[in-house]
């Protein structure tokens, strides 16, 4: 009952803000505060004992089921916390953007939908809330309602619709294999014994992958995330893409965490590793070239989701030893949500005071925004993985997982480890660039308004507090939440695998410092040489490529349409001609009581009779051709086609 209540509260809030005239009370804040309290106190017991399940008492083919196990509770609390923070931040910011009422309603509906996704007990309930989430968050993307926002919105909507349909088909396939609705969190494993189950899993991965920004399906993400108003972008990047990752973890459940080698999904883990690495690289390379701060952050969301996907892939690939990968992923999801939200909110503060997100037009802002500069420094260090902040903790776990896989000596995994380090350097470089261009460097010539928005800084401060806490006590969250979650998903030895890792050993610390310094050097080199201004040729970007493919297709399509049209009109003309001729012949026959058709002369016979005779002759020939009774006459192959009838 509590689970349904949690979903209903934001919807009541949405209705309330829909009908309230003035904006004296901050409805999203109150609602998300209530939800946050209820989740932390009401669902805390899930980590210790049994999961909660609730079925809505309905009959029929679809009974929405809700369920909270440790994994979903992690996500639910994370969502409630982020919404709380953003709703502290949003009122001041939305005064600048306008249309705050629509924004509030969408924010609350999205909260309800997100909670629904995390607490769904079967795949169809999950899909229901997933689609609702897409629709509600679409209004964030199109908030500004200009050409740019609409284009971004179209990207978002079409990718999401396609994803939703693909998910539906995946659910159908899994349901066929399992013989019922695929339930979540009950440990029902789909053994890979038929094509159907393999395709089902693959389709689900694609469907959730679109939401998670998995390369090459990430094209919508930078557009959508940079077009939304900042609180919206923060939640899109902070939480909504994690919904895709959550889905992937649940799909992994069908593949069987911790027992992959038996269930036959080794290839699946490997595939996820490769996709994860590609996503990391694409995101970080594209991010280095961006000049718009919000787009840079959006591409970093892609790259960081690559870490998560890589971790999941490793979890599946390593089988029963894969605890590190899975736990690293879950941990990184939480951490990324915190620092990415903080970064977006920080950029938002700069944006409403300067009206600019182009990094090359900003600079030297630390004098004017000292507190924001400090908070942003913390967040940027967090995402680059500096020790003492939360990014370090989860990246270390993931790094250990990669090293463990690399020890097996497979060339792919060895390269995965090397690329892991490269992406780390790239991340450090692009955030050094962001920070340098925004807060250090030459002071900007832009006119700066001084909005003393304390609530906005409080919001980021709250995030920074949690980040520092996690960074200083990396084991706290792991022990309380992540280990039970992994254990519940099927990795019973999760705690043991983590026990070997010490977060404060010199090797990891040193490598992180080296990464940071290398990143700063790369950034310096890039800024000096102007590489960051490089415009990628169209054929190298996915968008350009898909555009070219689309143009090719539409050209082919046009040719096809013209051919078809010509063929149809030719047939029509021919048949018209034949009919006219027939009428002429008939008239001639009627007049003369006979006549000539070609070289055959007929007398004393009507044209209709002649037609009938002709038809009969054709039929006889047809039948003798397709039913040869003569010995030795072999039917031509194309004739067998007609024999179907």
């Amino acid at each position, binding site marked *: 009952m509590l689970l349904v209540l949690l979903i209903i509260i934001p919807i009541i809030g949405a209705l309330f803000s829909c009908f309230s005239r003035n904006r004296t009370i901050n409805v999203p804040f109150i609602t998300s505060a209530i939800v946050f309290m209820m989740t932390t106190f009401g669902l805390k017991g899930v980590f210790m004992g049994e999961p909660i399940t609730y079925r809505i008492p309905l009959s029929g083919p679809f009974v929405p089921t809700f369920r909270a196990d440790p994994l979903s509770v992690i996500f639910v609390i994370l969502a409630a916390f982020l919404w709380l923070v953003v709703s502290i931040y949003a009122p001041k910011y939305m005064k600048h953007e306008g249309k705050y009422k629509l924004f509030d309603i969408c924010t609350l509906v999205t909260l309800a939908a997100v909670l629904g996704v995390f607490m769904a007990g079967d795949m169809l309930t999950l899909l229901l809330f*997933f689609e609702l989430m897409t629709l509600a968050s679409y209004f964030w993307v199109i908030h500004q*309602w200009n050409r740019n926002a609409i284009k971004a919105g179209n990207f978002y909507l079409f990718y999401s619709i396609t994803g939703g349909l693909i998910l539906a088909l995946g659910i159908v396939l899994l349901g066929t294999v399992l013989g019922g609705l695929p339930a979540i969190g009950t440990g029902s494993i789909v053994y890979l014994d038929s094509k159907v189950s393999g395709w089902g899993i693959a389709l689900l991965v694609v469907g959730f992958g679109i939401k998670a920004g998995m390369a090459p399906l990430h094209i919508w993400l930078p557009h959508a995330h940079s077009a939304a108003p900042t609180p919206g972008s923060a939640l899109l990047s902070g939480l909504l893409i994690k919904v895709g990752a959550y889905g992937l973890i649940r799909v992994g459940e069908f593949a069987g965490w911790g027992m992959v080698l038996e269930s036959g999904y080794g290839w699946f883990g490997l595939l996820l590793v490769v996709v994860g690495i590609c996503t990391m690289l694409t995101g970080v390379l594209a991010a280095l070239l961006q000049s718009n701060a919000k787009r840079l952050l959006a591409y970093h969301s892609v790259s960081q989701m690559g870490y998560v996907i890589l971790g999941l892939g490793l979890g599946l690939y390593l089988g029963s030893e894969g605890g590190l990968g899975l736990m690293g992923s879950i941990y990184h999801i939480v951490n990324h949500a915190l620092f990415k939200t903080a970064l977006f909110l920080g950029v938002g503060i700069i944006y409403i005071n300067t009206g600019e997100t182009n990094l090359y037009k900003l600079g030297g802002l630390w004098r004017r925004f000292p507190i924001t500069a400090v908070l942003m420094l913390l967040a940027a260090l967090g995402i680059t993985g500096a020790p003492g902040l939360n990014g370090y903790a989860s990246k270390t776990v993931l790094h250990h997982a990669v090293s463990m896989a690399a020890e097996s000596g497979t060339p792919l995994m060895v390269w995965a480890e090397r690329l892991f380090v490269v992406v780390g350097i790239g991340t450090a470089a692009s955030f050094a660039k962001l920070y340098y261009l925004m807060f250090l460097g030459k002071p900007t010539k832009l006119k700066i308004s001084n909005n003393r928005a304390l609530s906005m800084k409080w919001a980021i401060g709250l995030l920074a507090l949690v980040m520092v806490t996690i960074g200083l006590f990396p084991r706290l969250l792991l022990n309380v939440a992540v280990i039970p979650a992994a254990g519940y998903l099927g990795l019973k030895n999760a705690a043991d695998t983590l026990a070997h890792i010490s977060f404060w050993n010199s090797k990891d610390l040193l490598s992180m410092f080296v990464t940071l310094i290398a990143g700063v050097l790369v950034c310096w080199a890039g800024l000096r040489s102007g590489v960051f201004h490089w415009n990628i040729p169209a054929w190298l970007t996915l968008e350009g490529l898909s555009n070219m493919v689309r143009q090719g297709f539409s050209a082919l399509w046009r040719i096809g349409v013209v051919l078809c049209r010509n063929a149809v009109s030719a047939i029509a003309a021919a048949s018209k001609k034949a009919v006219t001729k027939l009428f002429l012949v008939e008239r001639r026959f009627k007049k003369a009581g006979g006549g000539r058709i070609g070289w055959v002369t007929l007398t004393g016979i009507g044209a209709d009779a002649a037609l009938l005779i002709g038809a009969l002759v054709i039929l006889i020939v047809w039948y003798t051709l397709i039913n040869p009774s003569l010995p030795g006459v072999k039917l031509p192959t194309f004739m067998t086609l007609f024999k179907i009838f």
Partner: protein
Amino acid sequence: LLDLILALSGGLIGGLVVAMMPRAGNRIRSITVSAFSILTIVFSWRVALKVFGGESVRLAGEIGGLSWSLDPDPLGAVFGLIASTLWLFAAVYSFGYMSGKHNQRAYYTFFLISLSMTLGVAFSGNLVALYLFYELLTFSTYPLVIHERSPEAVKAGSKYIIYNLSGAGAILIGIVVTYSWAGNLNFSYGPILAESQGQGLNWLLLLFVAGFGVKSAIMPLHRWLPSAMAAPTPVSALLHAVAVVYSGAYGILRVVYSVFGHELVRSLNILNIIPWIIAFTILAGVIIAVKQDVLKRRLAYQTISHISYILLGAFTLQPWGLAGAVMHMICYSALKITLFFCAGIIAEKTGQIKVSGMEGIGWALPGTMVAFSIGALGMVGMLPLSTFWGKYYLMKGSIEGGIWPMALVLIGSGIINAVCFIPLIIKAFRGKRLQSTPEMESRFTVMLAPTLTLTAVSIIIGLIPGVVWPGVQAVVDWFF
């Protein structure tokens, strides 16, 4: 039994009553029409409940040596319920749409008579009755198609008659052949042709599919449907998106499950071809729809595509596929009629029938555009809307029936449907804000009310498909 007779004759009597009131004012006529529609709904509900309860409601007789019978089974009951319920909505919408238009008496007369004929098709118990009402439906809707009397409408009317009568001719030949092979035309004793065998059955099935396919607008035989959009909007909405095309689809469901039986059809070779024709219709219809500029024509081509979903469900020959077909029949009709209603409101309010001229109308007609957007999402098949369930079970059926490419066709069609509608909706909210008289003018309130009600119903069914599931379940149990 009385229920059955009353349900069938309600529309007919109502039509005659309206015809005999030449001087009646709008108000009295509206009351008469709604009274008879509601009566029909009540009695068809009573019939349907009896049928679902397992009772037999049978009415039989003989004309000229041919025995006919009315003996609804669950499938017929579901179709009858859809038709009679939506008729009321269309009637209410017509009160708004037709007020101030010419020749309303003829309009409402034939409007009600065709309700009777549709219910006749639905409740028929053998092929003779089915054929009879099927033909009568064509004739009773012809006056509605040419209601505008413009040259375009008359031409559309001729096309309508020629196409549909040729189709009916094919069906008649099929019925004769069936009778000569089986000696019996009743649906109620299981599949008519269950005992037959031979290659000729392939041809017979093709003949039936071609015959009923004219009304359900399978791709080479679809040309009459877009041109019949010359009719007034409520007629296009009801007849050419729901009742007439559904009677074609219903005929094919009947042929597959009552005349041949799914086991026999499964053994026929022609099953290798028909699903592909249907898949072609599904994709080509919606692709052509994207290119149409006149909104009603766009909706018409989309109808062509969506009616084939039902046929696809019929030809999966699986319980889930049949469930999907029936579910799609129920859910799709409500949403499609909503879309047509919206097109009608837009045309009446702003005079704009072309998609290219729709900039800014969203601000003038917010309620209409919201309903339109919901309908459009329904066409895509997104989850909070009822059409998802039809699509879901159709996909399940095609996977289990071993024709998995059809599942991909359904997905593709969903995406192209999005391409078809979403740019339109965005366009409606762009550009200059169109100022106009408020949407809630009395006449438009009457038009908007059924539209919004139907959207709400679709969302409810989408969230709780259990509402309509007993009907679907009954149909599936009946045939499998």
